[in-house]
């Protein structure tokens, strides 16, 4: 029995969009917390900490998000934890976000001139204070545009959670499509919903980036970043 595509179906998609947003927000919050630790390990002077965080980042940036999801999902089940798709997805996206945010924030912290560290030490601040009062507030400004850009990537990336059976927007589209068999309408609509979530964020990221470029970064320091644009703007 094929159903018509009505307002009810549209409403169902909109309700499922909540879970896309919830998953992205949870991953962003969790990934932000872990990512900060990763970034701080990466800029610390202890060699083992640097190596561990570097390896962590490289593994997550060098493997497909889909594989990370599968390994979390099947891996957790293997350890005897009966995880449902939601917790596996939340965990996998948190780890994924932490690696990317860690790398973005490492770059932002290292963009702060050495003189700032030396100045902070010269006024007798201890290491946590140097970070808290001198380095991180300045790094935050540099980090904001790529972080907003990553949030777009994360929102788009949540669509893969549909593959392990978590009902977010893309999964809901499959459900609606199976009932109505209107694939073009359904997926075009879903693309439009994703677009309306991501586009404002992309615009914000671009605007902040240009503003930052005008405010403080000389053209010479911007050029090497060209290669990194692609890394931040992943295309899941």
């Amino acid at each position: 029995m094929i159903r018509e595509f009505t307002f009810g179906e549209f409403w169902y998609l909109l309700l499922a969009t909540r879970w896309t947003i919830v998953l992205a927000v949870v991953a962003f919050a969790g990934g932000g917390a872990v990512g900060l630790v990763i970034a701080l390990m990466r800029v610390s002077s202890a060699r083992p900490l640097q190596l561990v965080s570097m390896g962590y980042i490289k593994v997550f940036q060098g493997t497909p998000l889909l594989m990370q999801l599968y390994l979390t999902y099947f891996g957790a089940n293997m350890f005897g934890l009966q995880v449902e798709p939601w917790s596996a997805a939340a965990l996998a996206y948190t780890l994924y976000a932490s690696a990317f945010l860690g790398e973005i924030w490492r770059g932002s912290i290292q963009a702060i001139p050495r003189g700032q560290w030396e100045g902070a030490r010269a006024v007798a601040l201890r290491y946590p204070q140097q970070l808290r009062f001198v380095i991180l507030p300045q790094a935050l400004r540099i980090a904001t545009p790529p972080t907003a850009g990553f949030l777009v990537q994360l929102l788009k990336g949540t669509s893969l959670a549909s593959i392990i059976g978590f009902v977010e927007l893309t999964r809901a589209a499959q459900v609606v499509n199976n009932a109505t068999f209107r694939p073009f309408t359904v997926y075009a609509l879903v693309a439009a919903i994703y677009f309306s979530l991501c586009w404002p964020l992309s615009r914000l990221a671009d605007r902040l980036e240009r503003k930052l470029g005008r405010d403080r970064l000389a053209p010479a320091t911007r050029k090497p970043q060209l290669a990194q644009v692609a890394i931040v703007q992943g295309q899941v």
Partner: protein
Amino acid sequence: MNYVFQFGFVWREFDLLLAGAWLTIKLSAGAMFFGLIVGIACAQAKNSRWPALRALVQGYVEAIRNTPFLVQLLLIYLGLPSLGIRFLPAEAALIAMIVNVGAYATEIVRAGIESVPRQHIEAGRALGLKPWQIFRFIVLIPALRAVFPALGSQFILVMLASSVVSVISAEELTAVTDMIVARNFRSFEFYLVATGMYLVMSFGFQAIFALIDRRFFAPWSKQA
């Protein structure tokens, strides 16, 4: 934890995995090649005299960059047949990847073209080069050299994103792994090995691109 790892299964099926990985590389290379052509065309169109063309390209780039690849793929594979356009899974996968890469490549190529100093173009004109010669020798080639590292990272991102095309069973590494797992239920071992293979491919290509860049392109960008 009472799970016994059995990697023996994996080695028995390793040929299949390698064949999948090879298709992953071929798909990604094809998508990158044609996507780069799309990108060059669109980057040119973005500087065109006609506002409608500029708006069209801008719309394409923004639409692709702000929607998930999975949805683009499903729209092409499941959505287009209802308009009478049908593809085999591998064709749909390649087309979706080209459309996707094209948008990202447009931005990268445009950044490269903008990095070409205006004086070089004027010098070309003063030497009496024809417009297509100016475009080819003075704008495009130096621009591509300048953005080679970004294009290299893009290739790796494409390769990682290509695992998504397994959902329409396009027989690349992830799809092959899914298929084997459906037969013997050794999901963790196989996904772990497949992940390792992706990791090896990313590191391998990163190393190759870095080498090519150092060997051929870095001396040029220093001159500029």
